[in-house]
């Protein structure tokens, strides 16, 4: 029962009644709160977080949209205070190069390793069988292997 009750409060906590002057603004709000990361519960965006800070940040986004600020201005406001950490999509710069290019580097490295692996394999197939073995194969095929 208690769990059920807590669930109910959970739902109430996440839904705030806010009104927008236009559908466009509402969509901007929804996109922004989905892209901004909560600093308290670090694996949630501020849209899905119930943390107090996330509520404050949602409120900031809402007020700023109402005041006619652009998305860039709102994001700049957040980054100024909390750093690139608040962005789920970090900007491409020297510090984040590894983050953006790392996967492609790994992919390339994998392809190189695979290439050499396959090449060495196909060489093994070509490897020659010496005369003695060839003789034994012939005997086996003729069904006249009298060894042992």
């Amino acid at each position: 029962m208690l769990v059920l009750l807590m669930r109910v409060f959970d739902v109430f906590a996440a839904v705030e009644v806010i009104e927008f002057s236009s559908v466009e603004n509402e969509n901007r709000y929804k996109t922004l709160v989905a892209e901004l990361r909560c600093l308290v519960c670090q694996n949630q965006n501020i849209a899905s977080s119930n943390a107090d800070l996330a509520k404050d940040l949602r409120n900031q986004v809402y007020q700023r949209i109402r005041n006619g600020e652009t998305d860039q201005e709102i994001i700049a406001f957040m980054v100024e205070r909390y750093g690139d950490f608040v962005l789920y999509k970090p900007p491409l710069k020297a510090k984040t190069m590894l983050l953006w290019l790392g996967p492609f580097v790994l992919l390339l490295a994998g392809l190189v390793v695979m290439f050499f692996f396959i090449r060495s394999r196909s060489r093994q197939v070509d490897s020659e069988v010496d005369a003695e073995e060839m003789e034994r194969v012939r005997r086996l095929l003729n069904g006249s292997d009298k060894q042992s």
Partner: protein
Amino acid sequence: MLRYLTPLVIFAVLVAFLAMGLELNPREVPSPLVDRPAPRFSLPLLHDSEKKLGPADLTAKVWVLNVWASWCVSCRAEHPVLNEWNQNGKVLLIGLNYKDESNDALNWLKQLGNPYTYSVIDRDGRIGLDWGVYGVPESFVVDKRGIIRYKHIGPITVEDLKKTLIPLLERLNAESA
């Protein structure tokens, strides 16, 4: 030889990365405000809400902003350390009373002692937001030119004082304004 060495090297690299990962604390988000001017405010004093205080009143002084609240459990752990640190009142320690009830805050100081030179009231957390506060307690060291030089996230321990904060304040106090 190579076939035995390769997995060993990969393993060693993995261990090195994991060890580095263990040393890092994911909860400590580096603040973009370090080495930037302290965000301005002018907030009422906790003990005298008629009077206001802000960074503008503290120019040419080295000061510490400590974000605290009576509802904050870690602050309770930190409080004796702050009391000890500022027992002779030599540190200009400003408390930012974050999202708190003033009565609760005053009671807390009465019960546990008041290490703060002044405490100011940030009732709705708006100033905390400007300072990039995301958890309480947090502390900022501001130099004589009004630049934030250091941010400490989480409760200050005796070790933090000895190793970092006390030497840092000494150094900053020796700088010219």
